[in-house]
């Protein structure tokens, strides 16, 4: 057997092993209900901020506790606790991707928030009108 063949075989073997491991790493987008089935396991949940419910961040009490409510794609609303500070322009977010796991009392414990604020990069017309008016 030629050495190059051995090298190729080794490469293929390693690649397969790595890719299998890698796909196992990949997470899925879940809802609160499915994340609740395995409490403690981390998932991504996509949802919208429920603006009718209170957002709480009081650093004097706990600087790593930001609580808010999110409505997931199935329409379920859960309390979410993010162990950090309130992200910039959080209230205006249109969609948020939470990374975390379901904790006790159906409170979602979140370690990472990714927000989608299209308005920030693609200004819509009403917003532009408002901005121009504010500078008039």
């Amino acid at each position, binding site marked *: 057997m030629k*050495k190059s063949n051995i090298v190729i075989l080794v490469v293929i073997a390693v690649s397969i092993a790595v890719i299998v491991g890698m796909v196992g790493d*990949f*997470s899925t987008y879940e809802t609160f209900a499915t994340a609740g089935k395995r*409490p403690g396991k981390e998932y991504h949940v996509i949802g919208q901020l429920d603006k009718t419910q209170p957002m709480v961040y009081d650093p004097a009490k706990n600087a*790593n506790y930001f609580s808010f409510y999110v409505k997931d794609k199935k329409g379920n609303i859960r309390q979410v606790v993010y162990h950090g500070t309130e992200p910039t322009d959080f209230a205006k977010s249109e969609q948020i991707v939470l990374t975390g796991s379901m*904790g006790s009392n159906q409170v979602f414990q979140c370690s990472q928030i990714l927000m989608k604020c299209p308005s920030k*990069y693609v200004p819509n*017309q009403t917003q532009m009108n408002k901005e121009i008016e504010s500078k008039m």
Partner: protein
Amino acid sequence: MKINYIGEHLFPGQLGHFLIILAFIASIVATISYFIATVNKVHENRQSWRKLGRSSFIVQFGATAGILFLLCWILFHHYFEYQYVWEYTSKDLPKEFLFSSIWNGQEGSFLLWSIWDCILGTVLMYTSGRQDKKLAGNGVGWEAPVMTIMSFAQFCLASMLLGIYIFGYKVGSSPFILFREANPTMPVFQNANYLSFITDGRGLNPLLQNYWMVIHPPILFCGFASTIIPFSYAVSGLWTKRYKEWLQPALPWALFSGAVLGTGVVMGGAWAYETLSFGGFWAWDPVEIGAMVPWLLMIGGIHTLMAFKHTGHSLRSTFLFFITSFILVLYATFLTRSGILGDTSVHAFTNLGLSGQLLVFLFVFLIVAFALFIWNYKKIPEVKKEEGMDTREFWMFIGALILFLAGVYALFGASIPVWNKLFHLNMAPPVDQKFHYNKIEIFVGIALALGTAMIQYLKFKKTDAKMFWKKIWKPILVTLIIGTAIAVFGNINYWDHGLGFLIAIYILVYASVFAVVANIMYMFTELKGKMKNAGASIAHFGFGLMLLGIVISTSKQTAISHDMLGLIGNNYFPEGSAEAKHPEENVFLPRNQPMAMGKYTVTYLGDSTAAHDPKTYYKVNYVEKNKEGKVVAHFNMFPDAFVNPQGEEGLIANPDSKHYWNHDVFTYVTSVFDPSKMKDTAQYKSYDLQAGDTIFFADGYMRLNKIITHPVSPNYQPRPGDLAVGAQLEVHNNLGHVFDAMPIYYLRDSTYQNTVADTVRNLALFIRFDKILPEQKKIQLQVKQSGVVNDYIVMKAYVFPFVNLLWLGTIIMVIGFAISIRKRIFQIRKLLKQPSTSNHEEKVPV
């Protein structure tokens, strides 16, 4: 109805549109001319077509430079009638950031890319033209085919700027589009003098208002742009069926590309480290991966090229590396610009609706290049004999293969949104993104470090095993000593991912020390200090340092801010629960209240702003004491933030760091006191008083020194006809501190009564000048002191040890590249100086 708008500056835009079309057409002419100059069978015809190709390329260079100049012109003159200007700048933006706003938008970044291609293409035209004159004889040479591909790329880039509709498809997007053209339905454009309403632009994204953003994008785009040259040479080699001859002229360009692209990627890391507050220089973000992988492949290509040059092996893989490197630059551009990364990346880009166009170009380059490669595969010469395991070329190939696989792994993860789209999947990125990549790439790092350490001790074709061990044992010994010293005293205890990963970290420490030591020793023992031949050793030495810096600073990065309040309070969670996993690294820091962090005592001393600077600076004092209580170090840091920028709510924070030779202390604010959100129950109380009177409040008193006319205060802008008085107050607190305050009362247009309150924030004191009581010769002040703590920051602090090794290593690596480029250029020059007994008579391709 047609409205004649007032005050617009239309000429720069019209000229800009014209130049875009000129650049577009000139690049088509250049492509066609150079194409004919390659394929025509008659030498004289080829020469005249080449001349036409050259002049058209120069014309499109001039036009592109003109576009850039005009874009600068409208930006620097604040012509807000242009969408681009309104969107990305504002009047108060400093000059250097006006400059960086050029590449804030997609149109501008394509323009930047195009201008780099123009510059590089012109240099290439000159150098390859000169080489052809000497070496090609009556043959085709390299200028014509290579420039055909370069010109075609310029055609693609110019079309990205067109901004016209063809059969209903939007082709390109012009930076000269007018605001009213882009938003024709906005009611404000019913006014002929709408410009008098638009007095200022939206301003530059605060994250980009940083000096790294002035320098990093041009370098990175130069790197991106330069990858096309090795690509063009490789494709030209396949096209004209000269499979080997392109390597010599392509080599210096490949080295250049490796140096610049590498610098650009690391600079992006430096920007992230200094500006973005994720606390690090690398986050495995898809955008970062997209820039790094082409670099890995370029480096792989350089190594297989060297292997081929000396032994005849690895020619096919050299083709593949250079072709793929450029294709992946296009792919990375598609990833970042199409908006597909929306859910997975912090880098958000506008989707201009050009992703289809980008994909078309990507596939044109991909299909043509790979079709040529497959077509010619059998004809690409290959050495029949296998390379031995003990040869340099074998291990160079293995190294390049590892680079390739490392790139594939990273890119596969970064492309999750693409897989989702293609196969209708619902995959999300790994939950622990950093570890997902680190756990694999750490072994890549180990393998590469060992390779860079040993490769030069191996010989091409055959290595004498005895000699090898005789030479290598000394570096191994030194490595064991230094590595063990680091292991013993370095105190690396990264247990987050278990023992296995910690062991891998230690192996990487040893391996990268080995890379550093072996290459330094090689320079002295083997090269005898002849620096002009030491390019590879120096670059490898720098790479080893980079790896060492990365592994130490990442594994020893420690948060020194720990939220003790949270632990003491009712926030204790049992280990292993969902609630306990999260590091509590935000610390609440009320003003003037010292807090222990690591070996420091940290105190927040207050904030400050300056005129013409939109940022707020937070003064944070660090004191380090030794066991006897003596102060051994004290310094202030000024992390800053844009507070509520551009109508947003919240902070965009920039960290500050204190640099030591062996570590950085790194601080940033994550939240600050927001007066508007404070629920204040305190009530104003009224006081009537005259000059000399005193008012007492909870923890101090204030004295009305005098009442002055024409008061000067930053909070009050006088207008003609105002009748204004100010109450000059001296405020004392119980600790003996003295503050000034001056509330103002004024009559405007002799009817409107106004008052400008003043505050003493340290004392939470609010003072209003309510009215004048002329009969009693007194004034009425209203005073309130709010009860809540009302000045604080929430911050994080980290210590990054030895992050300087990464920056230093990068610089050294680039120096190594520069030395290699110089050497290769000299080799070509030497060839040019030889009497022209060209040993390869050129064939005219069919």
